[in-house]
């Protein structure tokens, strides 16, 4: 990044761009990053985070997390809280993949127990959790039942035998955000999504079997509270979203917002991907209700996948999933807009918090947290590239500076086209197998695009979030098996 010298350095990891930087900025913008991460960020981040700062009703600062990179409208890693009366809602602040998120599940198995069965496990998971372009799942629904699913989220799955009651309390919003209204969703969105429950999708979506090595536990107390108690314990992490359903909801409303934004509401924006309407307008409220359906579709999607993972482990190890300790640690989104209460200059206000490629990270004591995490803070799941590793973090009290938001992953440092030229899928798979990571991939070309070398170093991202006091390290996970979309 060429422009960073002009920024005000607020602390080692906070860089402020004053509102004088660009005409129309209503608040300053802040980028959270170490100097190294900031220098490596593309200029698009500055351009986009300062565009976000021009949106009506934005409160405090337009923010970008340490894994930030170019997105559409908002940068990936963007966070913006809007006043509910004067502010806007923008699909570009949420992303096309609404409620794309992470889920982490435990096992009571160790690496030594899993390693001999690893190929079988990954092969079975590859069969039972469809991955790849246009993939359809095994849950057969009618359009009308699908509309129930998107209003009820993961709760629908648990009610229908796919999951445990405790999964819900360990999912953001209890796995079902209130106020979803399927009548606000187009028939096209339903047709795109109704066959896709229980599927991973493609691109950077994956399901991974991981090991927590003892030297990678940084906070024993919290690791224990999160259920990581055994040496070389095996866990399962996966990353996916609302599939074609969410993508269509976002596309439908983005196009319709462009038609009314300026003509009806007089809102001028700097980038069409920042299309928005007043939050309280009929269009804004319709989108909010439809987007909540996509949030719920995604919770349901991950709930079905969690159920399949339990089935596969149970079949391979010939034990009940409960006896294999397959509890869910947490399920958390990194693409949403939600109504939340936050302190702003000593005043408790209800705000619409957009997070795009940013994870909610509530500190200890937050009322939204289940009893089991009240003392520790919310588990935050950060997915790394398929080669390098992932993290579990926890939210911290000082997180109020970012509306309790932190990073979501490692973030790309190389384009897909570059990665395809540099890496070969087949060789990558062979190299990784040599290093003890067994992968089943829906596409060899897709694997090349997702090579570890195409991503930022996740350790640097995590370090920046800790230094900035927006989350703290609990443990690092190392991949041993991966189902790749």
């Amino acid at each position, binding site marked *: 990044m060429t422009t960073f010298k002009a920024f005000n350095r607020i602390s080692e990891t906070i860089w402020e761009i004053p509102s004088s930087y660009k005409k129309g900025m209503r608040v300053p913008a802040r980028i959270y990053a170490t100097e190294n991460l900031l220098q490596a960020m593309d200029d698009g981040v500055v351009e986009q985070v300062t565009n976000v700062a021009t949106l009506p009703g934005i409160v405090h600062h337009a923010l970008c997390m340490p894994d930030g990179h*170019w997105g*559409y*409208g908002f940068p990936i890693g963007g966070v913006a809280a809007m006043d509910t009366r004067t502010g806007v809602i923008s699909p570009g602040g949420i992303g096309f993949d609404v409620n794309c998120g992470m889920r982490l599940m435990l096992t009571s198995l160790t690496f030594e127990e899993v390693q001999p069965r690893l190929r079988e496990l990954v092969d079975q998971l590859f069969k039972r959790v469809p991955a790849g*372009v246009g993939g359809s799942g095994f849950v057969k629904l009618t359009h009308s039942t699908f509309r129930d699913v998107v209003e009820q989220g993961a709760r629908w799955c648990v009610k229908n035998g796919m999951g445990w009651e405790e999964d819900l309390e360990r999912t953001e919003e209890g796995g079902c955000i209130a106020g979803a209204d399927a009548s606000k969703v187009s028939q096209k969105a339903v047709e*795109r999504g109704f066959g896709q429950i229980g599927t991973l999708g493609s691109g950077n979506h994956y399901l991974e079997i991981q090991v927590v090595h003892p030297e990678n536990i940084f906070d024993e107390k919290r690791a224990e509270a999160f259920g990581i108690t055994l040496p070389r314990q095996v866990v399962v992490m996966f990353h996916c979203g609302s599939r074609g359903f969410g993508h269509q909801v976002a596309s439908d409303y983005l*196009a319709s917002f462009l038609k009314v934004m300026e003509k009806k509401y007089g809102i001028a924006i700097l980038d069409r991907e920042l299309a928005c309407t007043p939050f309280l307008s009929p269009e804004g409220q319709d989108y909010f209700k439809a987007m909540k359906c996509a949030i719920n579709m995604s919770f349901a999607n991950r709930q079905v996948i969690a159920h399949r993972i339990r089935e596969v482990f149970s079949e391979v190890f010939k034990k009940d999933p409960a006896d294999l300790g397959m509890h869910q640690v947490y399920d958390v989104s990194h693409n949403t807009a939600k109504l939340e209460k936050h302190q702003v200059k000593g005043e408790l206000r209800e705000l619409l918090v957009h997070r795009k490629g940013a994870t909610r990270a509530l500190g200890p004591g937050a009322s939204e947290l289940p009893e089991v995490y009240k003392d520790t803070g919310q588990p935050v799941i950060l997915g790394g590239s398929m080669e390098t590793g992932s993290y579990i973090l926890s939210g911290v009290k000082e997180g109020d500076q970012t509306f309790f938001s932190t990073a979501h992953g490692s973030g790309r*440092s190389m384009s*897909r086209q570059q990665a395809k030229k540099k890496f070969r899928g087949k060789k990558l798979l062979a190299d990784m197998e040599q290093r003890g990571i067994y992968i089943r991939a829906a*596409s060899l*070309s897709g694997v090349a695009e997702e090579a570890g070398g195409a991503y930022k170093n996740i350790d640097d991202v995590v370090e920046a979030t800790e230094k900035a006091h927006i989350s703290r390290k609990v443990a690092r996970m190392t991949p041993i098996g991966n189902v790749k979309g």
Partner: protein
Amino acid sequence: MPYKYLEEIAMADAAFEAWGATAEEMFVAAAEALMNVMVADLETIHQTAKLPIRLQSEDMEMLLYEFLQELIFYKDARQLLLRVHHLQVETQKGIARLEGELYGETLNPQKHDLVVDVKAVTFHRYRVEQTEKGWEATVVADV
């Protein structure tokens, strides 16, 4: 191949430029470029299904947008990988219209080298323009 992928526009996604001497040629090129993000070899898509397509929009820019979104829709909703058989594009009295036929087949990972799903066509740097040489478009697809 009247399209090329652009590296500098979209780090995490797929951007392309498509062109043609006529609007129809440019629409076909953009459709091929979009499908080529998802399928490595377009020649592996055989003609086992045919599908009529008819769209209208306020201008050429939105017409291309909706046309590409249709291809994404059919990929998810009907599992169909589609190419253009023929199409006609025209603007009359301030309305842009497209009519034609698509062909293709059900996606099959054993047969088609499927790379990555396109989630949506974005408006990021999106542009459709008539030039001296014909028509051109820049499209960034979210993957």
